[in-house]
C-alpha cells in the first residue's frame, strides 16, 4: 500500500499540512518521533511559554496592581510546582487536540524517527528499535528547528538551559543570565523575572529584538528596563564556568575591551534556532541544503528531488509557527493541483511579553533602506479610553502607509493585547487596504483596537483623540 503523502514531523507545519491534504482527498501519514504531536511549538515552545507568561503575569499583577483596584489580597505565594502543572496541562490539552484532529481526518500517525530512504520511501524507526518502510508518492519534510548552541557553552538543561529547560526550572533562580535579547530570551526572561529572578540580558547587537522597527525596539527596551530587566548590549558571553556552586559567565564587549564575570544561578541560551535535519538521510537522498543548512526549495516548496517537499523552520523564512502552518496548507493544495500560496509580505510577528509587541509588514528602517516615501500615523495607548480604564497605557500603535497611494505597508504595536490586535492589520494588508480604509472602518468603543483606527487617522494627521 502506498500513501499519497507522508509528512515528517507533526509541528504546526506538519500536522496542518497533513490535515489539509486529507481534506483534499489524499491518503496521508505523519511520522513523529516525539510521543506527542505538535512539535516544538506545542510541546516545548509557544504553548508552554504562553502558559507560564499568563500565570506569571497574573502573579505579578496580584502582587502589584490588585491593591490599587481595591482588591485586597495578601502577598501572593508562588507554588512553582503547581504553575508547572498548569503549564503541562496546557501542553497536554493542545497535543491531544492535534492527535484528535489527525484521527478525525483519517491521517495515519506513525511514531518513530523518520528517514528518507529514497524518493517515495520513508523508513521509520520506532522506540522499540524496529524499523518499517512506508511508501508514498510525495514526502513533505516538516522537521522544524532546534536550539542554536554557543560554542564552549554546554547546555545541561538544569543550570545552563535552552528554552526547553527554562520551561521546567525546579525553583526560581536568584540570578538569571539570558544570552540573546530576541523573542525567546525576552519572553522567558520576563517569566522568571516576574517570579522573582534578577534577570540580566546579554545581547551581541546594540539593541533588543534585532530586525524589528527601531522605534519599537527602543521603546520596548525602556519598558523592560523599567520592569527591572538589566541589559548588556553590544556584548557577548565567551564562556560559562559551571564548576562552582554558582555559574560564572565571562562577558566581553563586542567592540573589544576588558572582560568581566557575571555570576548566575541559571544561564538561558536563547540566541536563535537552527534547521533540524539530523538523521533524515537528506544527503543520501540527494536533497540539497543551502549554506545555512536549510532545505533548499523552489516557490512551490519542492526540493531538488522530485516528490520531496519541505516547509516551515527547516526552509528559508521566519521561524514562526503560523508561517509553517500556511506553508503546510499551501504545499498540500499545490500537491492537489491547486494554486497554494503564502503571502510573505504579510506575516505577523508577536512577542508575548508585557506589553506585547506585534508587527506585520515593513519597519520604518526597511522602508528607509528601500527608499520608499511613507507617512507615519502613531497613536499612544495613553490616549485610548479602554487602556486608561485598565491603567495599562504602555505603548503605541504605529501605521506606515505609502505616501502616494496610502496603502498600509507596515503596522507596529507595542501594548497590552498587541498580539490580538495585529490580526486586523494583517487582514487589511492582505487586501491591500489603505490607512484610510482602516480609519473608515467602525471600531467598537471602548476597545484597545480603537488605537489602531486612531493611528490610521493619524496617517492623514486627523486623529481625533490626540
Amino acid at each position: 500500500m502506498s500513501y499519497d503523502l507522508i509528512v515528517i514531523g507533526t509541528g504546526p507545519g506538519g500536522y496542518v499540512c497533513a490535515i489539509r491534504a486529507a481534506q483534499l482527498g489524499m491518503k496521508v501519514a505523519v511520522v513523529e518521533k516525539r510521543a506527542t504531536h505538535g512539535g516544538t511549538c506545542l510541546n516545548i515552545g509557544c504553548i508552554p511559554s504562553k502558559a507560564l507568561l499568563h500565570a506569571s503575569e497574573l502573579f505579578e499583577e496580584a502582587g502589584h496592581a490588585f491593591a490599587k483596584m481595591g482588591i485586597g489580597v495578601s502577598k501572593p505565594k508562588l507554588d512553582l510546582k503547581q504553575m508547572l502543572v498548569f503549564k503541562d496541562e496546557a501542553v497536554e490539552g493542545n497535543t491531544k487536540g492535534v492527535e484528535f484532529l489527525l484521527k478525525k481526518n483519517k491521517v495515519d500517525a506513525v511514531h518513530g524517527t523518520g528517514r528518507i530512504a529514497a524518493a517515495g520511501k520513508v523508513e521509520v524507526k520506532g522506540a522499540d528499535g524496529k524499523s518499517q518502510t512506508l511508501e508514498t508518492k510525495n514526502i513533505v519534510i516538516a522537521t522544524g528547528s532546534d536550539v542554536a548552541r554557543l560554542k564552549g557553552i554546554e547546555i545541561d538543561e538544569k543550570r545552563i538551559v535552552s528554552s526547553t529547560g527554562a520551561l521546567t526550572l525546579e525553583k526560581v533562580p536568584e540570578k538569571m543570565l539570558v544570552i540573546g535579547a530576541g523573542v525567546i530570551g525576552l519572553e522567558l526572561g520576563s517569566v522568571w523575572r516576574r517570579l522573582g529572578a534578577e534577570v540580566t540580558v546579554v545581547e551581541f547587537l546594540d539593541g533588543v529584538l534585532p530586525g524589528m522597527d527601531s522605534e519599537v525596539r527602543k521603546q520596548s527596551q525602556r519598558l523592560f528596563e523599567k520592569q527591572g530587566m538589566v541589559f548588556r548590549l553590544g556584548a557577548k558571553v565567551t564562556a560559562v564556568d559551571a564548576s562552582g556552586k554558582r555559574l560564572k559567565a565571562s562577558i566581553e564587549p563586542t567592540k573589544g575591551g576588558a572582560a568581566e564575570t557575571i555570576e548566575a544561578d541559571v544561564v538561558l541560551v536563547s540566541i536563535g534556532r537552527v534547521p533540524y535535519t539530523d538523521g533524515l538521510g537528506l544527503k543520501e537522498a540527494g536533497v540539497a541544503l543551502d549554506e545555512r543548512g536549510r532545505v533548499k526549495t523552489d516557490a512551490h516548496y519542492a526540493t531538488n528531488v522530485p516528490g520531496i517537499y519541505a516547509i516551515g523552520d527547516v526552509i528559508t523564512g521566519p521561524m514562526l509557527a503560523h508561517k509553517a502552518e500556511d506553508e503546510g496548507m499551501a504545499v498540500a493544495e499545490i500537491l492537489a493541483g491547486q494554486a497554494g500560496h503564502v503571502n510573505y509580505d504579510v506575516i505577523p510577528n508577536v512577542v508575548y511579553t508585557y506589553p506585547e509587541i506585534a508587527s506585520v509588514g515593513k519597519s520604518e528602517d526597511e522602508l528607509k533602506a528601500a527608499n520608499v516615501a511613507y507617512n507615519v500615523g502613531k497613536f499612544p495607548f495613553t490616549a485610548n479610553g479602554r487602556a486608561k480604564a485598565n491603567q495599562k497605557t504602555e505603548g503605541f500603535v504605529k501605521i506606515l502607509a505609502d505616501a502616494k497611494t496610502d496603502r498600509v505597508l507596515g503596522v507596529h504595536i507595542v501594548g497590552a493585547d498587541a498580539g490580538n490586535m495585529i490580526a486586523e492589520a494583517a487582514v487589511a494588508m492582505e487586501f491591500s487596504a489603505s490607512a484610510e480604509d482602516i480609519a473608515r472602518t467602525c471600531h467598537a468603543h471602548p476597545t484597545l483596537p480603537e488605537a489602531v483606527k486612531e493611528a490610521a487617522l493619524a496617517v492623514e494627521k486627523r486623529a481625533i483623540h490626540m
Partner: protein
Amino acid sequence: MTDIRVPTLGESVTEATIGKWFKKAGDAVAVDEPLVELETDKVTIEVPAPAAGVLSEIAAKDGDTVAVGALLGQIKEGAGGAKPATAAATATGSPDKKTGTTAPIKAGEEEVKARGQDKPEAATPKPSGDMPLAPSVRKLSAESGVDAATVPGSGKDGRVTKGDLMAAIERAASAPTPVGQPAAAVQVRAPSPADDAAREERVKMTRLRQTIARRLKDAQNTAAMLTTFNEVDMKPVMDLRAQYKDLFEKKHGVKLGFMGFFVRACVQALKEIPAVNAEIDGADIIYKNYYHVGIAVGTEKGLVVPVVRDCDRKSLAEIEKNITDFGRRARDGALKIEEMQGGTFTITNGGIYGSLMSTPILNAPQSGILGMHKIQERPVAHDGKIEIRPMMYLALSYDHRIVDGREAVTFLVRVKENLEDPARIVLDL
C-alpha cells in the same frame, strides 16, 4: 482544461466589456455554443465555447473590461467531448453567424501567472459575485465621479485599491483634453440633496454608449464643423417609386426605398466635389476615389453606422439590398466590426423620427454628413403658382478646414438636383 480567451476584435479594437455570461460556472457546454457576450466599441459579439465540457471557471465577470487575448474563463473538458475550436472558422461567411471574428486565440506567455504556472488554476477561489469596494475607494469614487468598476484593480483578486483609483483620477486629470476619456466618466458630479439622491438611478454606460459619446465629442473638438441647408421636392422620386416599386421588388426581391436614391445622388455629388469625400491626415489631405457610404441606424442600444461599400459601382438594387440587410442585423446586434469601418461619407435620417431640421455631427475622420429629414407637404411656389409639394429639408454638416463654403453648397445643390430629376442619376450629369 481549455482557456476561453477574448478573440481578436478587428482593427483598432483592443478591449471589450463583458456584456453577459450565458452560462454559469459548472454548466455543461457544447463546442461552439455561445458562452459570453462581449461589447466592443463597435459591436456586440458572442464568444463560442472552444471545446465541449464543463465551464469550470469564469475569470471575468459581467461588466469587466477585458483586453484582447485576456482569459475569460476555462472549460474543463468532459469525457470524449473535447475538440479544439476549429469549427468556428468554418462558419465564417455565413451572414447570420458572428463567428468570423470570434475564434479564440492563444494569449502570450505574459498572461500566465508566475506562481503555480505549471498547475491548473481552476481551484483558485474566486469571488463569485459582487466585490464591495473598500471604504476609501467608495468615497473617492463618489467624490471624483470615476467609476471604480472601470479601474483595473491591483489588490487581492483584482480589487481596486485607493492607490489604483487615485492613479486613475490622476490619469484622467492629466489627459491632454477631456476627449481622451469618455467625457462623462471624468466629470465631477456635485452630490445631490439626499431627498433627490434617493430618486436618482446610476447606470453604467455601455461600451457602445461611451464610444458614441467620445467619438461625437472628438469630432466636435477636431473639425471646424458647420452646416448648410437646402430643401428638396420629393415628388419626382416619390412618383418614380410609386410607378416602379412593385416591378422592382418582384425583380430584385427588395423594396424600393428612398435611401438608394439618396446614396446615388450623394455619390454623384461627391465625385464632383471630392473634398467632401476626403479626410485630413496631419498636414495632408487624403482624397478617396472610392465611395463607401455609411448609413446611420438607430438601435435599442444606440447608434451604429454600417457602411455600404463601393456605392459608385453598385446598382440601386444592390445598395437597397445592402441597406435592408444592415438594418436588420443592426437591430439584432449581429453586425461585424469590419462592416462598420472604412466609410468615406455618412447619411443620417432623422426624418424617420419626425425631425424637420437638424445639424448632424460628423462621423470623424470623414468631412461630410448628409442629414435627411421628414417629408412634409408644404405650399411652395412652382412656375409662378403655389402648389402643395412633399418637401424635405437637407442638411450637410462639413469640415470647413478642407471643404470650402462654395463646395459645400454646390454639393448640396447637386444632391437636390439629382433627387428632383432622377434622370440625372441615370445619365450621370
